[in-house]
């Protein structure tokens, strides 16, 4: 019993720190769903592109990965706007299947080009930010900083959505696009901006994950699936709920192995996913209204 408690204490901080980054990735997905009802299947490859961006920024340009997050965010935003303009805008009012296929095509294009250019071999960012030892608990510097960056981005997103004019426009479009248009909100530009923001968050989360996990161009798929689970946990279309959903998932990943084999983690995660869909389809923190 004492051993289990020690194990829990050791694993919990890890899970919480990781949960922040999962939450950031899911926030991007859920923001896009919330504003434009598009399930973005290019989310995973964008996370992978964020990972490779950190790799190149750090290993080729010698820039600190956390400084590199700023250009990654900017490029992510612009890439998202481009994807929206090229692949999503024309099908935004079509049935969901059309936008699903459109973003799936983007997914395949990125993975295809990425595989040709970067292969599917695992890459590592050999960066260390040290660690803090508290008793038997080891807190890795990279995870601590990643959690901090996530908090900064989440606060920034919250401020942007609730305190700025474009942010209010985004919320207006998310609530009722037709009404917002009647009030003079430039909905096309706002939708493009929202898609850009969602992509930016995905790229930033990828950039942060690369500092502690290896990756390949296919690595984003796993985080995309986690983002769906988190989205459902936190409430689809609720970006702040996604952060809490991420924390719950992170804690589960940290705590479950204390009681059973690690390979049971995905089983329990997806059982929870189904359970939430059945019992509380709007998520623990409520879906967009």
């Amino acid at each position, binding site marked *: 019993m004492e051993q289990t408690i020690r*194990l829990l204490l050791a694993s919990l901080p890890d899970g919480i720190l990781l949960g922040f980054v999962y939450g950031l990735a899911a926030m991007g997905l859920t923001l896009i769903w919330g504003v434009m009802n598009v399930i973005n299947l290019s989310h995973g490859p964008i996370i992978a592109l964020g990972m490779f961006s950190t790799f190149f920024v750090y290993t080729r340009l010698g820039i600190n990965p956390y400084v590199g997050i700023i250009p990654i965010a900017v490029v992510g935003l612009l890439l998202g706007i481009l994807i929206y303009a090229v692949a999503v805008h024309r099908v935004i009012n079509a049935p969901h299947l059309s936008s699903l296929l459109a973003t799936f095509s983007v997914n395949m294009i990125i993975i295809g080009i990425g595989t040709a250019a970067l*292969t599917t071999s*695992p890459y*590592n960012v050999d960066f260390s930010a040290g660690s803090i030892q508290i008793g038997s608990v080891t807190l890795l510097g990279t995870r601590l900083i990643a959690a901090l960056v996530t908090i900064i981005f989440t606060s920034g997103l919250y401020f942007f959505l609730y305190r700025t004019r474009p942010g209010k426009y985004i919320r207006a479009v998310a609530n009722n696009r037709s009404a917002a248009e009647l009030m003079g909100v430039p909905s096309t530009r706002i939708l493009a901006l929202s898609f850009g923001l969602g992509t930016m968050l995905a790229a930033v989360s990828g950039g942060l994950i690369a500092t502690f996990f*290896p990756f390949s161009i296919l690595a984003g798929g796993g985080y995309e699936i986690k983002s769906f689970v988190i989205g459902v946990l936190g409430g689809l279309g609720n970006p702040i709920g996604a952060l809490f959903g991420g924390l719950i998932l992170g804690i589960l990943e940290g705590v479950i*192995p204390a009681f059973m*084999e*690690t390979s049971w983690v995905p089983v329990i995660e997806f059982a929870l996913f189904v359970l939430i869909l059945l019992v509380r389809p709007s998520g623990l923190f409520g879906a967009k209204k």
Partner: protein
Amino acid sequence: MKRSLVRIFTVLMLLGLVITACAPQAATEEAMEQPAATEAAQPAATDEAMPAPVEKTVVIGFTSSLTGSQEVSSKRQVNGLNLWMQQVNDAGGIQLSDGTVVKFEAVTYDDESNKERVQELYTRIITEDNADFLISPYSSGLTAAATIVAEQNGKIMLTAGAAEDDAYKTGNTSLFQLYTPGSLYLISTVDMLKTLDPSAKVAIVHENDKFSTAVIDGLKPYLDQQGFEVVLEEGYASDTTDFGPVINKLVESGATVLLGGGHYPDGSTFARQLYERKVGLNFISLLVAPADSKFPELGDAALGIATSSQWELAATHTEAEAAALGKEWYGPTGTDFAAAYEAMTGDKPTYHVAGGYMTGLVLQKAIENADSVDPDAVRAALEAMDIFTFYGGVQFDTTPEAHGLQISHKMVVAQWQKNDAGELQRVVIWPADVATADPLYPIPAP
């Protein structure tokens, strides 16, 4: 009227295109038939002179993981096979007693490290590409999928990178294994531990896949037999990237030695995270990953990590060894093989490269011994084979219970250590008679 004309014109154009497309094929078929005619005519025309050699191209079919989780090791295996094929073809092929010269050609596809793709592609390789012999894909999981197709079609398949034992124990008669079986993978490591630290507390943490599970199934009874205490046994999913919870369990278990791992992606990640978290174990042995030349990219995290290796250049097998064992020596020396590989790729060969090369070399020897490319004759030659090469012994179990299982090849234990210049290098630490360095035990604290 105008529309009908356009339609007729379009149909004519399409017809023309179809005829044009068919024409070269017909020509190619003719061209392909021509040598046969020439072959038949030649002996009569040159009755007095030396008969011109008849060239027979043997098609070797296989899939490789150009993408996906098995990419790193799979590409090395294929590089080894390609080197053998290039060498044998450049040397003029294999000369049979009836004057036939056998040359080789490869038919290969990317299986994307995906079992479903493997079955689909091996079916295609057999039925459409008419491969004469098959080589396995890389990894036990993919090979298990491919063996079903090979066996159904009665095609001989030489397997490398497929150590799991079970595939050879299900009544298959067309498989021939080059690797030491998975169940014996860590036996040498345990023997070494017995001499280094008989009181070591062992943690077993492994990938949940066919190969790693087979290795662990063979390891556990042997550990028990040798009197080691196993304080933790834990499996993890193949796509695990966060080993934090497992490492916390490892620390809590009080283990001093870790045995386990799986393949390259998970093994390299595990090693890195063990180092980051300063776990401080006395000894770590992981499967597959540390045997790859990419592993030192981990930097100091690679120091002290050991692996079971099918072949190491530093402990390559020799003709003298073969003579001492009373076995027939065959093929190039390890040094020549390594030099040729380095000249071809600029990289040093790993055991995955050697395994790929050996599939070709063993097929070559079987064709030579059979003096034929007839599958039944080649199968009989493989069953009778008992040779020694730079890679070690090659002999197959011929009993119905484990047909094709490798019974002659032995493994070594290799470990990443630093040389005098502070560079990481993989040295052989066990068995003692072939070791090139003493084991680094305990591993220096991170």
